[in-house]
């Protein structure tokens, strides 16, 4: 026989269980990113410059999960993105693994977690050009500590002490 007390316990357990499925902080972070830009479908070229792993970090709503993902810009603190940059990542496992990914037409690059789950810290080198065009390369002096979403640290203006501007290849404009 189900007593009122029994029903209360069941309701309490159900409420606790459902509450634990929601992370209001994460929900707020996703909401803060806003809607998709009109004319750009969800996919490899959407939302350049945003912190990819906010949605593609395993907690949804994006899928699949990326281990490393970001957007490449041409020049420090300037808006133009850059296609064709080879992002060369090396992890810190006992036998370091090098993984290379190339930025797409929106400047976006990403590595599915199923393809590579690196041991942090991860060191980053960028290469661009070669062949007919001048080869350019640069290295990020501080490693990625634990968050493979580049936009977590690289965002906003270039004049604040707590974050870097979006990921860039060059300090000054180039042909």
């Amino acid at each position: 026989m189900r007593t009122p007390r029994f029903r209360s316990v069941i309701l309490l357990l159900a409420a606790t269980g459902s509450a634990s499925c929601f992370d209001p902080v994460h929900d707020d972070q996703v909401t803060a990113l806003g809607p998709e830009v009109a004319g750009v479908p969800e996919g490899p070229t959407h939302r350049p410059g945003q912190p990819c792993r906010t949605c593609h970090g395993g907690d949804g709503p994006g899928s699949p999960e990326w281990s490393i993902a970001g957007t490449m810009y041409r020049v420090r603190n300037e808006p133009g993105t850059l296609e064709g940059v080879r992002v060369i990542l090396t992890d810190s496992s006992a036998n370091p693994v090098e993984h290379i990914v190339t930025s797409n037409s929106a400047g976006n690059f990403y590595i599915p977690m199923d393809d590579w789950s690196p041991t942090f810290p991860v060191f980053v080198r960028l290469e661009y050009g070669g062949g007919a065009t001048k080869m350019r390369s640069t290295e990020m002096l501080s490693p990625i500590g634990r968050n493979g979403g580049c936009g977590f640290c690289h965002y906003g203006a270039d004049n604040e002490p707590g974050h870097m501007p979006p990921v860039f290849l060059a300090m000054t404009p180039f042909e």
Partner: protein
Amino acid sequence: MTMREEHRTSRSAPRTWRILATVALMLSGCGMGWLVACSTPDSDARVDPVGPTGPDRASFDYVAPVLARRCGSIDCHGSRFRNLRIYGFGGTRLDPTHRPDLPEFVTPAEINATYESVIGLEPEIIRAVASAGGAGAERLSLVRKGRGDEDHKGDRRITPGDDSDICILSWLAGNVRKDECNKAGCLIDAGFPDATKIGSCR
């Protein structure tokens, strides 16, 4: 004077004295409070839970770049949202006019701030470890989490016996090993400490 009036007088005299004494005592108390309240506080006074026997501040100059390099990226302890904050190149800067990548060294003010963070994390234990010449360093969360011996979101950042491990343990022991610190912190030593460049190394 009647007997009744005499009696009243003899009883009221000590009572008057008692009231006067109480008022005087209260006034003197107020006066003391007033004096205390108006005295100039010592602006240099600090509660120092670590005390003079804590780990050495001067030789921490060699340790701070190691922590900045190994632990202080913006997504880890170089974030202002962390309990253990580490300041310096590659992380959050103390000076609001600085940027994570400029200047390319850990400033003296940042070394001070990181030192305060480290000794304030477990002040009694770090004092005991330093007083014991570094013995029992594994009691410190700094060491256990850095080595990955305790649950740590950043996993293992320091391998027992590597340069960074030797650097930190030697500092706690009061005999900092500068060469190991410089290697672990990727320092290009050019007039230490003001030009403590952090180079690119792994």
